[in-house]
């Protein structure tokens, strides 16, 4: 039963995400106003939601709906690219460590322990302060390069589980190089769990990016993300509740959708592992017991 519920949830989440992506791509067509146009700094300043402005206007008299639509472009693209970066680095690092084993693995894992000890948000605040004006590329690189630690641990564990499989030994015995074995025989075992983890990571990064942008470390003006739209209303939240509300809702619902999708994918992936891979209880073979 839980599987049906979560599958339906995942379907709704996927539809929602697809819709968001469509809106972000079609922003110039569907947004009612320009996101940067100050309509009338006197008469249109900080108006509550109305038929003319569904989400109201901000302190600079810009249409909030248009800003949220355009903000989705920034928030989603930054989050996706950052996760692509962190996933790539994480998979590469985890695969090398897990496959090499021995001293290489130990050194790489201790290094990772050290990196994990650094508080991520603090590191990002410091790094992005130094790279002020870096805009979206700075956010993507910063978030991407600090987000791969968990992924590489997960990938390493999957590699260590896949390595003793007999078809891997068979490939070695038939002359395959390490690179070929990693890509052909190990990577397929890693892709499923990594996809799940990356999907959940998008949710985290959406929230993280909003936080950083709210702190003024993200993209501003024309490339305002949801976080920086909220920042624009800073100091007047109590009066102008709609300014933090709508971009905030966008952040929360998007993060939620990616989390739900990740959960659904996890079930699909672990289900496939159970029925598609033969007897799950084949003991890892070691040469010593032959």
């Amino acid at each position, binding site marked *: 039963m839980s599987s049906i519920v979560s599958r339906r949830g995942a379907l709704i989440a996927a539809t929602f995400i697809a819709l968001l992506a469509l809106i972000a791509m079609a922003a110039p067509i569907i947004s009612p106003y320009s996101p940067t146009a100050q309509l009338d700094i006197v008469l249109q300043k900080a108006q509550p939601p109305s038929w003319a402005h569904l989400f109201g206007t901000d302190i600079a008299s810009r249409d909030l709906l248009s800003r949220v639509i355009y903000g989705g472009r920034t928030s989603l693209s930054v989050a996706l690219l950052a996760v692509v970066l962190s996933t790539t680095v994480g998979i590469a690092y985890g695969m090398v460590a897990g496959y090499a*084993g*021995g001293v290489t693995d130990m050194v790489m894992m201790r290094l990772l322990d050290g990196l994990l000890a650094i508080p991520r948000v603090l590191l990002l605040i410091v790094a992005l302060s130094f790279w002020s004006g870096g805009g979206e590329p700075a956010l993507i690189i910063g978030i991407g390069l600090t987000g791969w630690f968990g992924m590489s641990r997960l990938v390493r564990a999957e590699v260590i589980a896949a390595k003793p*499989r*007999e*078809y891997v*030994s*068979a*490939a*070695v*015995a*038939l*002359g*395959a*190089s390490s690179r*070929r074995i990693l890509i*052909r*025989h190990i990577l*397929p075992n890693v892709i499923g769990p990594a996809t799940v983890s990356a999907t959940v990571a998008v949710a985290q990064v959406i929230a993280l990016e909003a936080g950083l942008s709210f702190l003024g470390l993200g993209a501003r003006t024309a490339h305002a993300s949801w976080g920086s739209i909220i920042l624009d209303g800073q100091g007047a939240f109590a009066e102008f509740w709609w300014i933090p509300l709508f971009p905030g809702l966008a952040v929360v619902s998007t993060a939620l959708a990616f989390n739900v999708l990740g959960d659904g994918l996890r079930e699909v992936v672990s289900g496939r592992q159970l029925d*598609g*891979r*033969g*007897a799950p209880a*084949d003991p890892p073979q*070691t*040469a*010593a*017991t*032959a």
Partner: protein
Amino acid sequence: MNSARGPRTADMPKPLLSIQDLRTYFYTEAGVARAVDGVSLHIGTGETVGLVGESGCGKSVTAMSVLRLIQPPGRIEAGSRLEFEGRDLMTITDRELRGIRGARIAMVFQEPMTALNPVFTVGDQIAEVVRIHGGTRKEAWDKAVEMLGVVGIPSPADRAGDYPHQLSGGMRQRVVIAMALVMNPALVIADEPTTALDVTIQAQILELLRDLQKKFGTSILLITHDLGVVAETASRVIVMYGGEVVEEALVETLFDQPHHPYTEGLLRAMPRVGETRERLSTIPGTVPPSTAWPAGCRFRDRCPYSWDRCEKEHPALYQIGSGHVSRCHLAEDPERRAHPHPALVERAAEALT
């Protein structure tokens, strides 16, 4: 080992594979496991050699050592010599080694279920071997389909697109054999190739191996614990015990006149048609741990003939006849064979009850 006067005689051509004093040790927390401890053997071109022994005797580690597949904490010790087609396998580069693996020496694994990757079609997996050794995509696929036919899979062009789980155990093992033979290697190492299969399928697979050997002139090193399999397939047998070769002979000689008490025990433990024994006999006791081989003869505690010499002196390989060697002091004291006694482990067990 100088005392290892193997059954190589002058009239034999230079062997395809020659192993001299192979030692493969595993450095575990429980101590150094001397899994293979001074094994010498050779395989000639087109020859099928059976390597027999019970679990833990070192036969599989010997095979893995030939392809240098030993992973840490295991290590092939210095002084071991592996020579194949005139090349020293101990000193060649990794690239050369990969060129030999799968192309000149191929391995057939025991479990056809797990030796095939479930996410690729069987045709793809056979083609992969050709691709590894430099074939184009097209060549590789054509060769894969051809090999499926050679190993007796009906409508090979269709079956090539099947995934391993769509085939029966016997068919899968045929695929594994096709993967091993697709590059037409000089030597195939088959590690318990029929153990995981039904008896009727076993016979088919053994017949297939025999046919293919005739067809391609491939040498086969057949690793098994089953003397019946050896009798059907091999021309020469090497018996291993405790990480060492204990007896080597032609199949007929070994079955008719086994010399080593361990070989004798193995043969007695085999069911035979026409014999009406209520129980099959067993060899008492178990193989001692490879971290602590006993001094002297490693089989002595389980041996019905052992005497004080066996405790003091590690037996060399004695020449018994032409091409027949045995690691047993009985070679110099044959009259003791007439007076068996309960083995030490049996006496110990009796004392306990």
